[in-house]
């Protein structure tokens, strides 16, 4: 026997064994008319196996279904009918999903979840329930008066299996990323505690809450929503499966809001509820994942586009500077004036591209601090001297002592440049900009004061938001994307500090950077 045949045989045998055992378990649970079980794991297991390993494993299902029903006492013809129905159900679902819906086992798109609900939840279960009930009817096991009840129990059992068990296997068998990091450990622990507490309340009653009250079951939604939004499809399907296991066991033993004197009645109302839970969880997780992917793609696009933009910008800048050198030699004043204008605009373009890159890095959590020890006073002096070259404003620096800190020197320099150039930009008629470095017990404080147009109080809180631009006639004449302050505040936040603003309209603004002396990095 070669490896390929051996692998087929072993996998087939596994499907058969798991199918047989879970089927016998299901049939023990007060199956309607003896064979229509409301808790029917095999349907989901067979669908998941065929979706993962391929439809060629159908004989394992046929054999498992036949033997489980036959050994439970079904006449040979009925057992054959049932097994054919169950096989068609699994093979047809797997085929339709792959062929017409380009189905992905990870269920990370909304269309995969909907395809599973429609095809596996409603369509193919109808076929299996119908063939099964006809088989039992033909040998006289189902009484005509119980046809409706038996069919419905069969259908619900299969549907829940396809909506809870199949997704659990499919999603967890898929090699998609699941964050097991220590950081997530706390959150995972809290979620698990919440999930089990909620289950305890629902099924055993807790404090003043009466467990026989059905609305108490809806308490499952907070942990389900949490799991779906924060832990993706793996979190959602696992939460549904844990809830399904606990609730089925509790209901069988007579606990909780679904338990009545008749087990199959109890299980029926529980399973209908479970269906809604499972579907809600999967849809929510898929939406969250789709949103996340859109965000990622956007950041990636900004990053690639910005890098691509920089290449032609480099060439334009280069040739402008080559021409400046030539015009200098020829002493062509007009050409020099125009070429400097080109160079200036290229610098502006570069700044915009750099801002976009910074934002996309901050958004995707890729901004890394390069910590080094340096003198803050010295850095401020350097920045001020650099900025002084290109402005008619007089930048006045007040600082006394040298202050040695450990931080990202380059990024802190960027923040200072940004705030000082804002001060220059928004005080076109003023003469001075004041830059002050002081420190108290806990913070080093750098304040940048201008005497320009100022900012209305109502805009303070939104000033540091991404793409925020003050909406009024005066500021409309100033260009920019509204990214500078967002970037600056994010950089300072990463250093454990903050930026504060105070301003009087028409009088000017003061931006103060607070850098904690013991810098804690977020």
């Amino acid at each position, binding site marked *: 026997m070669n490896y390929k045949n051996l692998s087929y045989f072993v996998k087939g045998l596994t499907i058969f064994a798991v199918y047989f055992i879970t089927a016998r378990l299901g049939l023990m649970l007060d199956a309607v008319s003896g064979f229509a079980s409301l808790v029917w794991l095999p349907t989901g297991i067979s669908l998941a196996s065929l979706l993962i390993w391929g439809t060629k494993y159908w004989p394992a299902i046929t054999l498992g279904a036949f033997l489980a029903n036959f050994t439970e006492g079904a006449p040979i013809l009925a057992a054959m009918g049932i097994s054919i129905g169950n096989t068609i159900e699994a093979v047809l679902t797997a085929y339709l999903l792959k062929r017409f819906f380009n189905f992905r086992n990870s269920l990370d798109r909304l269309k995969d979840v909907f395809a599973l609900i429609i095809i596996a939840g409603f369509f193919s279960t109808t076929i299996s329930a119908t063939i099964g009930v006809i088989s039992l009817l033909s040998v006289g096991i189902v009484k005509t008066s119980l046809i409706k009840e038996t069919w419905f129990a069969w259908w619900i059992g299969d549907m829940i299996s396809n909506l809870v068990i199949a997704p659990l296997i499919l999603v967890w068998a898929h090699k998609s990323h699941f964050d097991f990091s220590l950081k997530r450990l706390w959150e995972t622990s809290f979620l698990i505690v919440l999930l089990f507490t909620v289950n305890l309340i629902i099924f055993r009653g807790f404090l003043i809450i009466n467990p026989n009250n059905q609305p108490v079951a809806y308490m499952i939604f907070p942990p389900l929503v949490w799991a779906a939004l924060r832990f993706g499809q793996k979190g959602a399907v696992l939460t549904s499966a844990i809830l399904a296991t606990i609730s089925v066991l509790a209901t069988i033993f007579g606990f909780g809001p679904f338990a009545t004197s008749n087990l199959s009645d109890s299980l029926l109302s529980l399973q209908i509820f479970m269906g809604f839970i499972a579907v809600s969880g999967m849809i929510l997780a898929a939406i969250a994942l789709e949103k996340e992917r859109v965000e990622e793609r956007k950041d990636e696009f900004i990053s690639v586009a910005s890098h691509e933009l*920089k290449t032609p910008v*480099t*060439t334009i*800048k*280069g040739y402008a*500077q080559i021409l400046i050198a030539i015009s200098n030699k020829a002493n062509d004043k007009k050409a020099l004036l125009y070429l400097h204008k080109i160079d200036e605009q290229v610098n502006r373009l570069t700044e915009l591209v750099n801002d976009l890159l910074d934002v996309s*890095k901050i958004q995707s959590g890729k901004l*890394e601090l390069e910590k080094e020890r340096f003198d803050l006073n010295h850095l401020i002096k350097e920045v001020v001297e650099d900025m002084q070259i290109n402005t008619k404003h007089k930048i006045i620096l007040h600082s006394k002592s040298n202050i040695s800190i450990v931080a990202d020197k380059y990024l802190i320099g960027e923040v200072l440049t940004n705030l000082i150039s804002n001060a220059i930009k928004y005080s076109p008629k003023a003469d001075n900009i004041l830059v002050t470095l002081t420190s108290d017990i806990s913070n080093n404080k750098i304040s940048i004061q201008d005497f320009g147009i100022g900012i209305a109080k109502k805009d303070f809180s939104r000033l540091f938001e991404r793409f925020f631009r003050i909406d009024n006639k005066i500021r409309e004449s100033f260009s920019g994307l509204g990214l500078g302050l967002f970037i600056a505040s994010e950089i300072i936040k990463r250093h454990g500090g903050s930026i504060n603003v105070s301003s009087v309209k028409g009088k000017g603004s003061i931006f103060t950077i607070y850098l904690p002396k013991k810098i804690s990095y977020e």
Partner: protein
Amino acid sequence: MNKILVCDDDQAITEMMTIMLETNGYEVKILPSGKAIQRLVKEYLPDLILLDIWMPGIGGEEATKLLKRDLDIKSIPIIIISALQKDEVKAMAKKIGADSFLSKPFDMDDLLKIVAKHLK
């Protein structure tokens, strides 16, 4: 005359840099990819290498590591040039053992200054 090897996959950039460097008295050789850079450096024996980071095939990162491992040529200064953000290029230069860095777009003066500094 000092010889400079410029390795970048973008022709517009290499043409421009050639003009900048040649008009300032350097001999320039262009290499449009990182492929065979080690052999070429050994043949041409430049006094300085200007190297782009993002190139198809062998990029600047790999090329620098290759050249700096080769005892015959490891003393030739390598200046990496990239469209990455300034702080990123700086960190990259440190990481891979390049002698210096420039981030695109750069000033002609900055290019000439950095080249002169490393040719001393």
